[in-house]
């Protein structure tokens, strides 16, 4: 376990380094923040002055080196636009993001997996057919359309839920649902196909021949073996939903981290964009590590080689 942790930590550091370098280069290739920080009437001298005060006139490797040496000490610079510490701005948005992602993922797992398992179990039945039709529809509708449909039904039509903003639990339902449907549907399909394979195996047949109850066969003998792709997808989706969440955040005016990163890239607010990317990369690495641990728990054949 100690070695495993050390190796995982090493991977996180390397990943962070590579990701930050790539994003750094892309940001700098995308344009000059100084131009966006001054009125368009400003003189070239004024722009150059700003550029040099931000250190943007130095060679790229010097700028990146400075970024890394500060970042290691926990200093991610200040927002060029808001003059507030960049990391603080990013972290302040995370509670809102986690709230909606957490609820969405919970909903997706709670419904997607059992629907997938029972679809596979009752393959070809009306239950399976409706679940698959639901999946096809859910996957076909883009999230912003889904968001708008939900707003129309629940907020404008039935008037039971607010259209936008962050507040109590009622504000959370529509954005979480919008985000959840896509993941739920993907989990349903993934679980179903994985379980169809598993349910055709000899060990499931033996479990039946032992006289076990159907639920025990499906979950303890079946899902335990079919969970691998599902776990992988759910783990990736924790981070993937931050990206997918950008659209949902826009539709519901939800103050999440995805929107912050997008607007900071648009404004060439480099420190904020870099801080956001680093946090998301770190999250990604942590969830990859957790997925690895889960693999070992699910499949003892992997455990030995880990």
């Amino acid at each position, binding site marked *: 376990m100690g070695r495993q942790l050390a190796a995982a930590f090493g991977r996180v550091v390397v990943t962070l380094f590579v990701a930050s370098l790539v994003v750094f280069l892309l940001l700098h290739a995308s344009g000059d923040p100084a131009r966006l920080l001054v009125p368009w009437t400003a003189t070239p001298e004024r722009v150059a002055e700003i550029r040099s005060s931000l250190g943007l006139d130095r060679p790229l490797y010097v700028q990146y080196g400075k970024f890394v040496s500060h970042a290691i000490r926990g200093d991610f610079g200040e927002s060029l636009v808001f003059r507030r510490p960049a990391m603080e701005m990013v972290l302040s948005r995370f509670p809102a993001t986690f709230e909606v992602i957490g609820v969405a993922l919970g909903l997706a797992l709670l419904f997607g997996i059992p629907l997938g398992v029972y679809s596979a179990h009752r393959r070809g039945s009306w239950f399976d057919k409706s679940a698959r039709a639901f999946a096809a529809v859910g996957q076909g509708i883009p999230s912003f359309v889904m968001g708008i449909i939900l707003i129309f039904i629940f907020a404008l039509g039935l008037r039971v839920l607010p259209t936008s903003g962050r507040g109590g639990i009622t504000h959370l339902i529509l954005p979480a649902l919008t985000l959840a449907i896509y993941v739920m549907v993907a989990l349903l399909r993934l679980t179903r196909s994985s379980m169809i394979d598993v349910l055709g195996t*000899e*060990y499931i047949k*033996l479990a039946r021949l*032992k*006289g076990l109850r159907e639920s025990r066969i499906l979950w303890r003998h079946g899902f335990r073996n079919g969970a691998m792709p599902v776990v992988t997808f759910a783990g990736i989706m924790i981070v993937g939903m931050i990206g997918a969440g950008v659209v949902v955040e826009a539709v519901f005016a939800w103050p999440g981290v995805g929107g912050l990163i997008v607007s900071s890239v648009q404004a060439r607010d480099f420190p904020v964009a870099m801080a956001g990317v680093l946090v998301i990369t770190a999250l990604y690495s942590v969830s990859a590590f957790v997925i690895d641990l889960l693999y070992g728990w699910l*499949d003892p054949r992997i455990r030995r080689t880990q």
Partner: protein
Amino acid sequence: MSGALDQAAAGRSGTPAAPGAGAPLLEVKDLRMHIFVRRGEVKAVDGVNFSVRRGESLGIVGESGSGKSMTLLSVMQVLPQPGGRIVGGQILFEGEDLLRKTARQMRDIRGNRIAMITQDTLASLNPALTIGVQLREPLEVHLGMRGKAANERALELLRHVQLSDPARQIRSYPHEMSGGMRQRVVGAIAIGCKPSLLLADEPTTALDVTVQAQYLRLLREIQKETDLGMIFVTHDFGIVAKVCDHVAVMYAGRIVETAATRELFDRPLHPYSSALMDCLPQRNLDARLRTIPGHPPDLAQLPPGCGFADRCSRVHERCRTEAPSLAEVAPGHKVACWDVEGAA
């Protein structure tokens, strides 16, 4: 022309008939199990009759695809899904018709009073669960054993199937064991609740010859100890000769001939039985492994007459229009063939 095989058969028929006395343990009457698939109705089990008594073993032989596995799975009512359905017949076990049982009642019988070892034994252990968990499961479900008692019984079972170092093996996973060991574990799971009937579906095909012989000996011992009724499915007549009291020859979803092992070896009456026996390496001194020319019929499109007609050297007019049914031609010897005197 025979040699070892016939001697083995003779040895088998030498066992006393005592255990066979009384009512049959299992009696299958006109059993039909069809699999409804897109291209039609596969008549995998098409009117099968046989019976097994306590302490007796019945061999079911036939080419691959003749419906042997489906017959056993029908008795257990664990059918291929979707599509498998029992469409007729009776399965009388200890006098009760299993086809009239509820799903719940059937669950209580499965793995408890009737156990089955499936064809692909090496794949039948769950890779994610320890041997101990898998062994204890039927004990917990059927016998209500828990904790230490269940564990003790599991260890005892592993010792019973002569697995070395049971205390260690009980905590290991299937992938940590050899094929022969896994086979023994599957055997141990099957006998865990002391069933009165054991169905074994080609339990030795995946094993090499020495391990195979050991495993057969083990099954025989277990059978003797517990007065177990056993059905042994195989495509190997050699195994039948070693293990079985009676044989049923299966072809295209039906039993075409059944007799005491010795009787069938001495006097195979059905052309398919003779053809199968001619394929045995022991019987064919030119040493080339022969197979029966032609293919079995498509079980979704069975011809109206005898299913063997296209491959039979003794075929005549009637065979193509009317299917022969199983008839007794000598005490205990039944054949379904128009060309056998006294049959059909």
